[in-house]
C-alpha cells in the first residue's frame, strides 16, 4: 500500500521556482484562512473529535503550509508519504476523525484556487488532489498497528 | 452525589468566581471560591471595588449590556493580581439581586506563561552551560598559574631548571612546557659587549 503511494507521489510534476515562490509568500496567510473556515464549520466537533483540539487543528494547518512549502522547493516522495502517515496516526490518536482530512483538504483546494494565480494553482493543486484521493489509503495504513519504520519516530511540534 | 450536590461542589471548589449583584454593583452573595479569593463576603460592598484600576472606567450598566466576556483584573487577599473573564447575566425575575457575575480564569494567561517559561528555561540552561564551561577553563588556567608559583630550582651557573621528574632542562624548554609564552632569541647589550666586541 505504501509502495503504491510512493510510486504515485514520485509521478507528481515538480513545482516551478516561480510557483513555489508565490506559494511560499502566501502560505502563512492561507493557513490562517483555512483554519478560520474550518473553525466556523457547524460539524467542527465531529471532524476534530473535541473542541479542545482546535489549537491542534490550527497548528496542523500552519505546519502543513510550511511543510508543503519545503516540498515544493525540494520534493521528496518518501518524506511526503511518511510524514502524512505520521500525521494521520498522531492526529487520529488525539481524536481527529478521518473525515477531518477530506474537509480540511477541500478547504485548502478552494483557498488555493481563490488566493493563488491560475498558473501557481495549476502547479500545486495536483499535490492536494493526490492527498485527497489517497485519504482512504492513509486511513487504512494508520488503522493497523505501527510497523517498524512506519514513521514511528518522534516529531517536534 | 446527586446533580444539585455536584453543582454545589463545583461552585464551591472550581476556580470560578460566582457573584450575585444588584444593578448598581452591590454584592449580595458569592460562592466559596470567590469568598476565599476575595477575603469573605463582607469584605467588599460593591463589585466595582474589587476591580484593580477599573474603578473609574468600569460601568456596570455597560457590562450587563455587553455580549462579550470582559477581561477584568482583581486582587486576592494575598495581594496577587489575577485576570478573569467575566460574563454578566441579568435575571429579571429576581428584583434587587438581578445580575449574576460569572468569572473564569484567563486560559491564555497560562499558555503565554508556559511559552515564556520554556524560553526562559532554555536561556537559563544555556547560560549555566556556558558558565560551567568558562569555570572549568578558568580553573585550568589557575592550575597553570599555580605551577609557575612557588620555588623553582635553578642552576646557579647554567640556569637550567629542575622539573617535577628531577631532570634538569633548559630554561627555554621549561618555559615552553609550562607557559603559553613564545620565545624569540635576541642579544642583550652586556652579552653583545662580552661576545661580539672586537679587540
Amino acid at each position, binding site marked *: 500500500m505504501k509502495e503504491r503511494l510512493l510510486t504515485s507521489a514520485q509521478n507528481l510534476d515538480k513545482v516551478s521556482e516561480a510557483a513555489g515562490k508565490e506559494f511560499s509568500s502566501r502560505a502563512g496567510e492561507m493557513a490562517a484562512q483555512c483554519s478560520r473556515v474550518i473553525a466556523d464549520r457547524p460539524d467542527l466537533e465531529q471532524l476534530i473529535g473535541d473542541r479542545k483540539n482546535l489549537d491542534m487543528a490550527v497548528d496542523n494547518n500552519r*505546519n502543513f503550509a*510550511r*511543510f508543503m*512549502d*519545503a516540498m515544493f*522547493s*525540494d520534493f*521528496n516522495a*518518501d*518524506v511526503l508519504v*511518511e*510524514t502524512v502517515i*505520521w500525521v494521520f*496516526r*498522531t492526529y487520529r*490518536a*488525539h*481524536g481527529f476523525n478521518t473525515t477531518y482530512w477530506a474537509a480540511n483538504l477541500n478547504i485548502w483546494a478552494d483557498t488555493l484556487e481563490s488566493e493563488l494565480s491560475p498558473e501557481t494553482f495549476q502547479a500545486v493543486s495536483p499535490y492536494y488532489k493526490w492527498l485527497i484521493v489517497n485519504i482512504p489509503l492513509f486511513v487504512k495504513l494508520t488503522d493497523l498497528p505501527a510497523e517498524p519504520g512506519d*514513521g*514511528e*519516530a*518522534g*516529531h*517536534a*511540534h | 452525589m446527586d446533580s444539585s450536590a455536584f453543582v454545589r461542589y463545583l461552585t464551591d471548589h472550581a476556580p470560578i468566581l460566582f457573584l450575585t449583584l444588584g444593578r448598581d454593583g452591590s454584592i449580595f452573595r458569592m460562592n466559596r471560591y470567590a469568598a476565599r479569593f476575595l477575603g469573605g463576603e463582607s469584605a467588599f460592598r460593591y463589585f466595582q471595588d474589587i476591580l484593580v484600576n477599573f474603578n473609574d472606567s468600569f460601568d456596570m450598566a455597560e457590562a450587563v449590556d455587553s455580549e462579550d466576556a470582559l477581561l477584568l483584573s482583581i486582587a486576592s487577599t494575598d495581594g496577587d493580581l489575577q485576570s478573569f473573564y467575566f460574563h454578566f447575566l441579568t435575571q429579571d425575575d429576581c428584583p434587587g439581586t438581578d445580575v449574576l457575575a460569572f468569572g473564569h480564569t484567563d486560559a491564555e494567561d497560562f499558555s503565554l506563561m*508556559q511559552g515564556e*517559561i*520554556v524560553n526562559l*528555561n*532554555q*536561556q537559563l*540552561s*544555556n547560560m*549555566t*552551560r556556558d558558565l*560551567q*564551561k568558562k*569555570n*572549568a*577553563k578558568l*580553573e*585550568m588556567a589557575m*592550575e597553570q598559574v599555580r605551577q609557575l608559583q612557588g620555588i623553582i630550582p635553578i642552576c646557579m651557573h647554567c640556569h637550567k631548571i629542575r622539573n617535577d621528574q628531577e631532570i634538569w632542562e633548559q630554561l627555554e624548554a621549561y618555559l615552553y612546557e609550562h607557559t603559553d609564552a613564545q620565545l624569540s632569541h635576541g642579544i642583550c647589550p652586556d652579552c653583545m659587549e662580552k661576545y661580539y666586541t672586537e679587540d
Partner: protein
Amino acid sequence: MLTETMYQDYLACLIKGDRTRCAETVTSLLDRRVEIKTLYLELFQKSLYDVGLMWEANKISVAREHLATAITESLLSLIYPELFAKEEKTRSVVISCAVNEFHQVGGKIVADFCEIHGWDAYFLGANTPMEQLLGFIDEVRPDLIGLSLSVYFNLPRLKKEIRAIQSNFSRTDLMVGGQAFALGGEKMLSSVANINYVPGLDELEGILAHG
C-alpha cells in the same frame, strides 16, 4: 546499574513534573560512577523519545511534554562539573540550532556528547540568527560545526545556512542531524556538498573518534 525499574520510575517522575526525584536519580547514578555516556543515551535521550511517543499516542498533553523537556535540560547541568573536566581539549566544535528552530535539547545533548569525547563543544541555542552563528564561528574557528534540525519544514532555511557557512568557512567540516530526518529526507542534503549526515549518537561517536 541503571535498571529498568529505575528508568520507569524516572520516566514517571519526569511526566509528573517531579524534578527533585528525577535529580535524585541522576545524582545517585553519578555517585555510583555510572558512565556519563550511559546517562545521556539510556536516561535522557531514551526518556525524551518515550515522552514524544506518549504525546503522539495522546497519553500526555503537550504541556507535560514541554515540562519533561524543561526538566531534562535542567538535569543536564548536574553532569557539567564532570563533563567540563580540567583537561586541555585540542579540538573544538560549534553546535547550533537552525534559524526558526525552537527545539534545542537534542542539539545540546549532541554538544555535551562531544565534550564527553574530548572535544571543546560550544552550544548556541534555539533559533540562533545566521549572523550570530557566522560571527561566533569566526571568533572560535572550530574544527567542526554541527547543525540540528528538528522539524523538516525548516530544511530550506537550513540549506541556506549551510551555504552561508560553506562560503565563509570552506575548510571547516560540517555535520547535520536531528529529529527532522526521523521520517527520511537526509538525502536532500546531498545537493549541498561536504555534509556529514549524523543519524544518531552512535554514528556521532565514529565521527568524533576520527575527527
